[in-house]
């Protein structure tokens, strides 16, 4: 992450002490923060002293400009919040005693630029206040349904809400609810996910000013942290139907139950893929290359007489149900650009999800014996057609 920052500073580099605080923040924060822009506010810019931080909130990012002052390094940084948050005044929350979290103001009062962890505690303190601010804003909306939803959900840990009001659209309230009280990082043995993986449901309600007889169904969408997609695709998960008159407290347990089953399936698929790759090794020999964590790809070396070629297997997250896709790649035939000739994707080899792994591999091996002759012919023809 520090490299990313350094490459962004086409204007001068961040002052060393500020860079130390920013790097500490990016490395140690459990939030997936991003730095968008770095620049200087000095007349003679030797060092940059301000940057835009993208802070994740409610499945989106909010932009905070962190304004240090390189000329007066002992002064604490100032923050300019996004235009839609013009009423967010974290310091007044603290002084009015509306929050018992007064670490923010005390850390600003007794700011220490030499302590690299200070920015992290400031940003986290401000974000906590921001969560409270958005909840208060949503709580003040005069909508009976929203008030009810908020009161039943507010006790859930990690819930975030925000009011979306754009001038040309009706007001909406977005809920981001973390689902499943389980550690997804432990599902996959040996995985190297840096951040805690989470699945959220995003529910967007339209604010109805007057009490309408039939409140419209909310827009529901599942959102998973990006790294989860190698285990399962969140788009494939079917959402339960939202019935009229339903509330989220009823809907969420159904959704979680459903999701839990599908995650179990995804893990079962992963185990099936692993067994398949292990079985491949018995017939084809050791794989040339394999994805040992998610088992989505494996490449084997095969030969038929003197013709040697590679077999790439692509395994989907729906693995035994969806059969693997094979691509053959010759190690002896090259096109005019010097690139090895590959077959089109093959997805019609003999297959049944009910076979056990060794039977699957046997049938593919037999298929390969026949297919190698076709592929050799295909390679020779494509070489001839070049001349």
């Amino acid at each position: 992450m520090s490299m990313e920052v350094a490459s962004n500073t086409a204007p001068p580099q961040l002052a060393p002490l500020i860079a130390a605080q920013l790097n500490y923040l990016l490395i140690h924060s459990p939030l997936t923060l991003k730095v968008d822009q770095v620049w200087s506010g000095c007349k003679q810019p030797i060092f940059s002293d301000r940057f835009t931080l993208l802070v994740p909130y409610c499945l989106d990012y909010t932009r905070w400009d962190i304004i240090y002052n390189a000329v007066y390094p002992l002064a604490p940084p100032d923050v300019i919040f996004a235009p839609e948050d013009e009423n967010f005044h974290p310091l007044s929350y603290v002084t009015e005693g509306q929050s018992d979290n007064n670490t923010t103001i005390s850390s600003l009062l007794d700011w220490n630029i030499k302590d690299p962890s200070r920015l992290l505690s400031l940003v986290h303190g401000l974000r906590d206040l921001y969560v409270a601010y958005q909840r208060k804003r949503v709580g003040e909306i005069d909508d009976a349904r929203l008030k009810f939803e908020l009161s039943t959900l507010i006790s859930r840990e990690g819930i975030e809400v925000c009011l979306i009001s754009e001038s040309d659209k009706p007001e909406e309230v977005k809920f981001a609810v973390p689902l499943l009280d389980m550690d997804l990082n432990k599902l996959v043995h040996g995985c190297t996910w840096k951040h805690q993986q989470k699945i959220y449901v995003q529910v967007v309600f339209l604010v109805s000013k007057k009490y309408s007889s039939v409140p419209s169904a909310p827009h529901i969408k599942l959102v998973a942290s990006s790294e989860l997609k190698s285990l399962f695709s969140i788009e494939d998960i079917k959402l339960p139907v939202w019935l009229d008159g339903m509330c989220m407290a009823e809907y969420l347990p159904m959704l979680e139950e459903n999701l839990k089953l599908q995650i179990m399936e995804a893990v079962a698929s992963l185990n099936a893929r692993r067994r398949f790759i292990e079985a491949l090794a018995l017939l084809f020999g050791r794989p040339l290359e394999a994805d040992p964590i998610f088992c989505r790809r494996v490449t084997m070396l095969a030969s038929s007489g003197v013709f040697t070629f590679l077999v790439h297997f692509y395994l989907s997250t729906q693995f035994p149900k969806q059969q693997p896709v094979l691509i053959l790649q010759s190690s002896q035939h090259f096109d005019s650009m010097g690139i090895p000739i590959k077959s089109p994707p093959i997805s019609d080899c003999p297959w049944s999800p009910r076979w056990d792994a060794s039977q699957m591999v046997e049938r593919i091996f037999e298929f390969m014996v026949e297919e190698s002759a076709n592929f050799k012919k295909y390679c020779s023809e494509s070489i001839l057609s070049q001349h």
Partner: protein
Amino acid sequence: MDDPPIEKISIPGPLLSSLLQLFASSPADTSGYIFGHLLPLSPSPPLHDDSDPPPFPPSSPPLFATITSLFSSPNNPNFLSPLASSTAPLLGWFSARRQTPLRPSMREFSISKTLFTQTPNAPSPCIFLILSGSFSHQPIHTHEYRAFQFKSDGTFEPKPLQIVNIGPDFRPHYNVFSPISPIPSLALNECEEDKRPKSLSEMKGEKGAIEQKAMDACAEGFSITRLGRLMGSEPARYTAELEELYGKMLKRLESLAQQVVESSAKLLEQVPRF
């Protein structure tokens, strides 16, 4: 507290340019105070002449704010030093920061709030001015600024900022201009009552008698009237008399010097020798 609404804020062009110059030449972000006047936009009807009118009548007519001066402490941008003495009342403050959005920041909100609620002579209403712009090594510098009224409910309300300059047609206005303030009274001595200076003879006849006596003692009969003749057409006749006067004066000085010499010799004798 009910906020009197500000209709518009005006700033003289030269003052704004000096503010921009102050900002452009400062090494980093800077801030300072704004002083000026508040006037009701439409003059209130002159009904209660004798009674004290309330400062803001119940309807709270919109106000017109005029910024007249600035004060900035260049040494510390993050600390607004105690109010500098200014003839105009405090109107608010400004914050100038390079290449930043023209929105009040977290700190600026807190300072405005403190200034508005916790300062003894809090400006009401309080004006806040943000300046930004790009200055770094570019051929063209852009300046941006935005004015706000800070309200007691903790919101910044954007207000138009009008730049006032004297145009070429202002000249005739000087002819109809009449100063409101009187010419200040100068501390002179008593003879200022009479507009013309007194002649010497008048001085002699009037209060000047005491001074005259002292002068006569020195002049030894050579009266001031006779001295006056020196200025006339026939001064030659009096030169001898004048020379005699000077001669007497010199003799007297000589005798004085003699006395000093003698007395210091006596003093020296009396001082014990060691």
